């Protein structure tokens, strides 16, 4: 187990190094270079030269990389000149709100998707199974933003049941203080994920139902309920843990669309606004943070899987 941990953490570190190199290389691809993106098109050559030297963009790439990584390790993710705010404080302000959205959406989708996936596998080829299969096919093919637009159209514009936008506030407490405004974003977000969990759970339970241990359990006189929930369900749940870890990029992307559609003031909306203003420090800082979260998520999922499933060999 210790050897496995060391090897797996080593892999994760290598991946992090590769990814940060790619992200830093992106900076140099900005039209006219990073300094021009910062100063705008009317900057004089003298200004460009001055700021290029000031920020160290004239140094060799590896020196820039080491300096940049060093700063990040000290918690300095850059400074947004457009917002006049450090990227770290921007994250501190917006991340809690995004976490509220992602967490609520994920929990709702898991609570719906897992039991319904089990139901589909047990009652496969029934009408209920076909209906749910149809819904999850729709879930796979519907763009998140379009579903969000439909919800706004139906429940906010036409019927005024829910407000169309989340409260535009800088504090997470205001967001939580208006739960009605959270309903539509959370529902839209959960629909995106529901298809993923229920399809996965359905095939996983179906695979497990033909395993030898199920026949053994039945032969020993276990009731159908014990077989499903005591044996099959627990085995299928293990793989959901891995899927959850691997789905982090999907979760991040989903959050961006939902936040833009509902004007929800989280990291996704801030990232989108930064893209419109070519605020590259924010773009880089957020991307590095999301990537690091994904790498750590994958690592935890792997370790969790190894601990939950004794058949995994290290």
């Amino acid at each position, binding site marked *: 187990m210790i050897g496995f941990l060391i090897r797996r953490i080593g892999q994760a570190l290598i991946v992090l190094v590769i990814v940060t190199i790619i*992200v830093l290389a*992106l900076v140099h691809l*900005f039209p006219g270079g990073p300094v021009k993106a910062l100063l705008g098109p009317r900057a004089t050559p003298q200004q460009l030269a001055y700021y290029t030297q000031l920020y160290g963009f004239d140094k060799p790439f590896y020196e820039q990389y080491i300096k940049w990584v060093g700063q990040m390790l000290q918690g300095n993710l850059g400074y947004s000149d457009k917002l006049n705010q450090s990227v770290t404080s921007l994250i501190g302000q917006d991340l809690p709100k995004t976490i509220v959205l992602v967490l609520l959406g994920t929990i709702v989708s898991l609570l719906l998707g897992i039991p319904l996936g089990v139901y589909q596998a047990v009652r496969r080829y029934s009408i209920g199974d076909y209906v749910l299969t149809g819904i999850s096919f729709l879930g796979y093919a519907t*763009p998140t933003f*379009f579903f969000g*637009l439909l919800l706004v159209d139906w429940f906010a514009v036409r019927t005024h049941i829910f407000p169309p936008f989340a409260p535009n506030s800088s504090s997470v407490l205001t967001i939580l203080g208006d739960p009605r405004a959270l309903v539509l974003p959370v529902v839209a977000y959960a629909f995106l994920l529901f298809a993923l969990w229920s399809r996965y759970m359905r095939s996983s339970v179906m695979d497990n139902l033909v395993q030898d241990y199920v026949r053994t359990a039945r032969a020993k006189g276990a009731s159908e309920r014990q077989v499903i929930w005591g044996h099959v369900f627990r085995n299928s749940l293990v793989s959901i843990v891995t899927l959850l870890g691997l789905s982090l*990029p999907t979760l*991040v992307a989903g959050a961006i669309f939902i936040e833009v559609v509902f004007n929800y003031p989280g990291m996704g909306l801030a990232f989108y606004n930064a893209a419109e203003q070519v605020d590259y420090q924010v773009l880089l800082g957020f991307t590095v943070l999301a990537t690091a979260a994904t790498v750590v998520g994958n690592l935890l999922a792997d370790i969790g899987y190894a601990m939950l499933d004794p058949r995994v060999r290290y």
Partner: protein
Amino acid sequence: MANVTVSADELAQLGAPPAKKRRGLVRRSWDVFAENRLALVGLGFIVFIVLFCFLGPVFYQTNQSTTDLINTMCPPSGGHLLGCNELGYDQLGRLMAGGQTSIEVGLAAALVAVSFGTLYGAISGFFGGVVDAVMMRVVDAGLSLPSLMVLIIAAVIFHPSPVVMIFAIAVFYWFAVARLVRGETLTLRTREYVQAVKVVGGSKLRSVIRHVLPNAIGTIIVQATFAVADSILTLSGLGFLGLGVSAPATDWGSMLSGGLNYLQGSDPWWLIYPPGILIILTCISFNFIGDALRDAFETRLQRR
């Protein structure tokens, strides 16, 4: 022992394979595919939508290059069957033009991603060892990049034209294909017929291209079908965020980019529902086809 003569009829009854029932591989796979009603509906819809987008403009001619500010937001009528958008473009004609971009970019991105990913995964899996370890760490890194965020950055950096979009989307899709094909290659390379190439003195490249890849072709085609649907979705997402192809060109996602603004006021349903529904139906069709193909290829393996 007594002489026992067995007639051909009896042989057939005993279960020996009748010669005429052995049909071609493509034919058998098609049979399984055709049994799947949903897949046929999907295939039919794809044929329809391709004709609609590419031949439609011949019969329904509209001006899709200059704005027409007199007719902004006009409701559906005899002259404009689906009305006009906020710049006076005919909406039905725009659906055709946008569909061309969406389908072309979707197909091309899938082709680029699957070709490159396949080659990369096959090489990595076949050579194994250090080569495999290094190549797969690159794939791991790629899979942990939040693709949408980097695509947004890429759209800021490059002027988004259809060609740029094709490669931008493909760059993020090939990682998953590479990992899948690598897994397939790992199991295939231990098979006897691949080992035999080595014994006869064939090069490694030859065994990958001539023996491993043709046997992984089922997995690859299925993956390519899903890749088309995913690429169309990704393109529509970027279009919605205002980062798709630039006007006057458009795609189905870009047609929805001002969607929220339309929702207030005069309720112009023709601006929101048609492009959204076309995206959904096209992606569902490709997913149906991909599912049926997976069944078709698996059955082929079982019947062998």
